[in-house]
């Protein structure tokens, strides 16, 4: 199709829906975003090119410029790839397990029944407890003489040590699933509540079973919320620092050395701020890639008029 003349392109009217919008209302947000996110992010990127450590901390911006040396070191000797793998496995696994739990819970309380309010409130308890408290409580539960092993002991199973070696990873997964599934539940229930009853009634008239109603009515209607929930959940698990740090301590067992904890150890325990910043920048890039693909695929960033 031939392009319209340039003067017509220039004079093309704005879409009706954007005309007269008070876009200036965005300024407070933009200023805050710049101050709280953009500027620190740019400083972080700059630090990642500096040899900034305890010896050069006071000079800060005048610390020696080392180009991509921190990035090279991150990949070659700081255990970055190992931590990326651990964080990826951790975030994907926990999201995969949280999703059906959250979906089932949302569907269970979607229709009215006596005590629904109480059940809904209870479902939110793990999510509203601060991560620090969750990790501390589970640390006690997973102690060799803790509640988990006492429970296993009643079945004649020796639970052993949960917070060391390979099992530390699984302990982390269990605790994170316990704490995070209500997020998927909340996203799902919000979507389910917005489905008009008429759609279910129409399905009933067609003789649909409850499985078919979920498959052909509910899930397609909540697709947007669910995909957004999966995206946010995966990112939150990947970036979770408090839970592994408090649950497993530092240094963490290698099988559970997630990227955020590795970045923290590098930056604030051995004071390699430049190297830590490089690892953080790589972490951000890694997160942006799936986030963009996810958002585009789910049309969550679609412009007005696009489908």
């Amino acid at each position, binding site marked *: 199709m031939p392009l319209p003349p340039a003067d017509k392109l220039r004079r093309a009217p704005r879409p009706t829906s954007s005309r007269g919008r008070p876009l200036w209302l965005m300024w407070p947000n933009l200023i805050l975003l710049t101050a709280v996110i953009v500027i620190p992010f740019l400083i972080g990127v700059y630090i990642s090119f500096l040899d900034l*450590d*305890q*010896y050069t*901390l*006071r000079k*800060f911006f005048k610390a020696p410029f080392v180009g991509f040396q921190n990035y090279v070191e991150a990949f070659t000797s700081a255990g970055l790839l190992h931590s990326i793998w651990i964080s990826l496995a951790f975030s994907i696994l926990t999201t995969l397990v949280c999703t059906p739990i959250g979906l089932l819970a949302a569907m269970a309380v979607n229709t009215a029944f006596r005590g629904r309010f109480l059940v809904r409130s209870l479902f939110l308890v793990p999510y509203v407890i601060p991560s620090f408290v969750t990790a501390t409580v589970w640390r006690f539960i997973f*102690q*060799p*003489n803790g509640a988990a092993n006492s429970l296993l002991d009643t079945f004649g199973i020796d639970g*052993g*040590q*949960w*917070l*060391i*070696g*390979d099992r530390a990873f699984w302990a982390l997964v269990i605790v994170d699933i316990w704490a995070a599934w209500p997020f998927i539940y909340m996203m799902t229930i919000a979507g389910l509540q917005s489905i008009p009853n008429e759609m279910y009634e129409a399905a009933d008239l067609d003789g649909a079973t409850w499985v078919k109603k979920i498959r052909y009515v509910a899930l397609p209607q909540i697709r947007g919320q669910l995909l957004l929930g999966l995206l946010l959940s995966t990112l939150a698990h990947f970036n979770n620092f408090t839970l592994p740090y408090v649950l497993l*301590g*530092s*240094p*963490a*067992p*290698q099988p559970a050395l997630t990227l955020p904890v590795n970045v923290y*150890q590098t930056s*604030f*325990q*051995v*004071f390699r701020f430049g190297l830590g910043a490089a690892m953080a920048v790589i972490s951000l890039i890694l997160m942006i890639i799936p986030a963009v693909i996810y958002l585009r695929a789910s049309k969550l960033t679609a412009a007005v008029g696009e489908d």
Partner: protein
Amino acid sequence: MKETIGCHLLPSSRCRCSNLTIETYASAADETTKIQSSVVAGSGPDIHNLGTTFTPVAYATQGFLTLSEDDWTKIGGRERFLPQTLGMSGPDEANQIGVPAAMRPFGLAYNTDMFTAAGIASPPTTWDDFVTDATKLTNSAAGVYGTTLDFSDPFDPWKFIWAMTEQQGGYFVSPDLKTAGLNSDQTLSATTGYFDLLTEYHLADPASVGWKSGDAIAAFSQGKAAMYPMVTAQAIPTLDKSPLKGHYAFASLLTVALGMTERPAGAEPAASIVSGDNIAIASYTKDKDLALQFIDLMTSTDQQLANYQAFGNLPTNQDAMNQLSAQNALLAPFLEIESNSTPTAFTGAWADVQNGVTNVVTQSQPSLASGSYDTGAVKALLDTANSSGQSALDRANK
């Protein structure tokens, strides 16, 4: 000023009295972050409280004032302090930034009733004696062990290994602060010796592989362990609230390594690291004299005794510590422990070294839980820690 000190004892996280503002922090990590922010920004508190092992890092930042002879005179002179407490004030006498404000030497707590019942007249003085006594005191069938150990603690394990290394004549960092010694025979022997307390001699609860210091003190206070090594006087309030009150005492940690009857020539006793807090003045201060006055007050006899009453920190002030140990026999051993303590290497690279050794223990935990370990695997972990430590030292010496 008295009002200010009263303010210091308040539980609030921030309080302002007269012209002094005092902030306390929820954790050591918070404190470290604040110090780093202040160093970068060139503004913040005039005075910082620094842990002794963090003082070399603070010194490396060049964000703190080096105290002149005149400054020392204004705070009562070096002679005001127990000599060993000055061991972590700076790399040498001419370059000291930290004034010792609190002392927390590590000792050995032991259950006097269990010792008497086992016919043991006095606490052990060598690691071999420790093994002998702890073996005698262990009754694993009854769930009672000779000692507590805490392999999951982020701080205690490296101190055991450091002490045993020093007592064999080895080092984590060479005296000239240029060479890491984590791959030496002494460090390997110290590490495996520490592990052997559990895997070979079975002196501690097997669950201690996952214990931190809090678990250790719980086991000791419940009478499930006869000895509790690597304890400070700050444990006293906890122990005195347990059934153990009046049935325990403190002694020095062991000063002769496993398998030895005496230390090799030149080896340090290393009964404890030089542990506690230093006060340092930020280089950006605009009121150095007031800061010195405050330090003078905080390290005075009366205030040091008040600090012990409020926080359990032992005095660094000689007069105060002598008074305290004369009044309280329980505390007397800590004077001897402090006199036998050895400072850790005063280098900004210390954090890498310390974390490296802690990581060796952390990654060895699955083996320890299984009841044995592979010496080759331990050596490989120590080699990795040594590379990291050496790299940090090289950066420090650039």
